[in-house]
């Protein structure tokens, strides 16, 4: 670990494109070995610290001197999207962008909706939803079927809609908007419009829930806020949008990549179908292996902090590479190996520290049910194209596949 390394950022801008779904880009490995906290140049041109060691990643994420506030100067913008900071200036920031006691208050206001007890009560309903979309797949005459549109996207979308209390007749409005927001073939301007329309649907829904409450998350949030004084419409809208956006495409991408990996490794798939008790560990390993939110975790230092042998100065940006940390041999033996029986639970695919994913146990539940049900009900499922013809989201913030043509 020589100090000169810190002044010599690699030539290529980070994050690098993930050209192979199963391996980490080679420069990631090299940086982690040379210096687990190092300076890189981002796609937008600015410099930031790249945290690639597992211990260093946990140290940064547990340290309150690093802020999540996207409005702060120095907060890195890994994908160089110019609209990025503006989006967070106009509305009450989502909880993922809040710090300290403000963050804790907002997080605690919805935490009760995501306890393990509440989630196990949802299990039968999620099973029904998964079965319904698999029924539709099986009823479809034409093959191949695109798993992304048939299962990966609609399952988490419907689950989160029902959790929030979106009535059945509005499901289409939500599903089409959330689908448009994530579809590559939809031009960026239209995707942004889909987002605005989604917000309009949610705002109308909130108004309706104020006068006609139901047995759902949004109605309970409204009741809770009334008890505390007044209903903060803007805050609720931000929470609802945050849940929809954070919980939809992420889970969908994990479904797609998990199915892909299990199709490519028949032995591992057999393990799951023979012993459903092995699914939870396999889900953890798939989460670690794909690390789909590789560059979603960013922070900005609020004061000088020593970590991994370097000093990160106040106002300097930090990106925690989830993929690199999850492939650190110091934390996982043979990290490049997909091994569904390993103990992988300490991965940081859901982050670490006070912002660790609020929906992680919902995502776990959905993934377990999907993998268990899909391979049981369609035992002959197989890829309809070779892996190298699958369009992967090589440059997206959340890694995944645009399409997964399957047949049986």
């Amino acid at each position, binding site marked *: 670990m020589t100090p000169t390394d810190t002044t010599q950022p690699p030539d290529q801008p980070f994050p690098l494109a993930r050209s192979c779904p199963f391996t980490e880009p080679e420069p990631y490995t090299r940086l982690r070995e040379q210096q687990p906290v190092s300076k890189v140049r981002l796609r937008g041109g600015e410099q930031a610290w790249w945290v690639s060691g597992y211990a260093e990643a946990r140290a940064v994420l*547990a340290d309150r001197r690093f802020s999540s506030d996207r409005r702060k100067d120095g907060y890195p913008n890994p994908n160089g999207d110019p609209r990025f900071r503006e989006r967070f200036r106009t509305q009450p920031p989502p909880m993922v962008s809040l710090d300290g006691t403000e963050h804790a208050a907002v997080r*605690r206001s919805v*935490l*009760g909706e995501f306890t393990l007890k509440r989630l196990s009560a949802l299990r039968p309903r999620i099973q029904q939803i998964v079965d319904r979309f698999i029924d539709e797949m099986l009823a479809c005459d034409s093959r191949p079927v695109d798993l992304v549109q048939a299962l990966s996207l609609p399952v988490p979308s419907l689950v989160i809609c029902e959790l929030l209390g979106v009535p059945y007749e509005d499901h289409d409005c939500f599903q089409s908007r959330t689908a448009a927001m994530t579809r590559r073939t939809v031009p960026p301007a239209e995707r942004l419009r889909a987002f605005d329309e989604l917000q309009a649907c949610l705002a109308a829904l909130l108004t309706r829930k104020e006068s006609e409450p139901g047995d759902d998350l949004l109605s309970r949030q409204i009741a809770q806020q009334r008890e505390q004084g007044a209903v903060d419409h803007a805050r609720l809208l931000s929470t609802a949008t945050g849940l929809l956006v954070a919980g939809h495409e992420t889970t969908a991408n994990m479904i797609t990549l998990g199915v892909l990996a299990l199709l490519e490794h028949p032995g591992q798939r057999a393990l799951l179908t023979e012993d459903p008790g092995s699914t939870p560990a396999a889900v953890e390993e798939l989460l670690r292996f794909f690390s789909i939110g590789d560059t979603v975790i960013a922070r900005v230092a609020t004061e000088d902090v020593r970590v991994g042998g370097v000093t990160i100065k106040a106002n300097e940006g930090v990106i925690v590479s989830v993929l690199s940390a999850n492939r650190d041999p110091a934390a996982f033996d043979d990290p490049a190996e997909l091994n569904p029986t390993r103990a992988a*639970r300490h991965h940081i695919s859901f982050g670490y520290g006070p912002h660790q994913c609020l929906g*992680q146990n919902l995502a776990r539940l959905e993934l377990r049910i999907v993998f268990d049900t899909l391979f049981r009900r369609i035992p002959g499922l197989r890829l309809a194209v070779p892996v190298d013809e699958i369009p992967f989201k090589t440059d997206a913030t959340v890694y995944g596949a645009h399409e997964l043509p399957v047949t049986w």
Partner: protein
Amino acid sequence: MRIEADTETCVGSGRCVLTEPAVFDQDDDGIVVLLTDRPAGRAAARARQAASLCPSRALRLMEP
């Protein structure tokens, strides 16, 4: 082994409950509740795992 849970820093991840439901529970607001503060045997080993997984470092172990 004795265990202490800091309900102020807990962020309700549920990781401890998933790891050892005989020692950890969540209240209706999602915050950790200790079912025992002196786990033994397998439960103690799992409580240790839970402490190492806890994202907010809210679980403290004290030996013996």
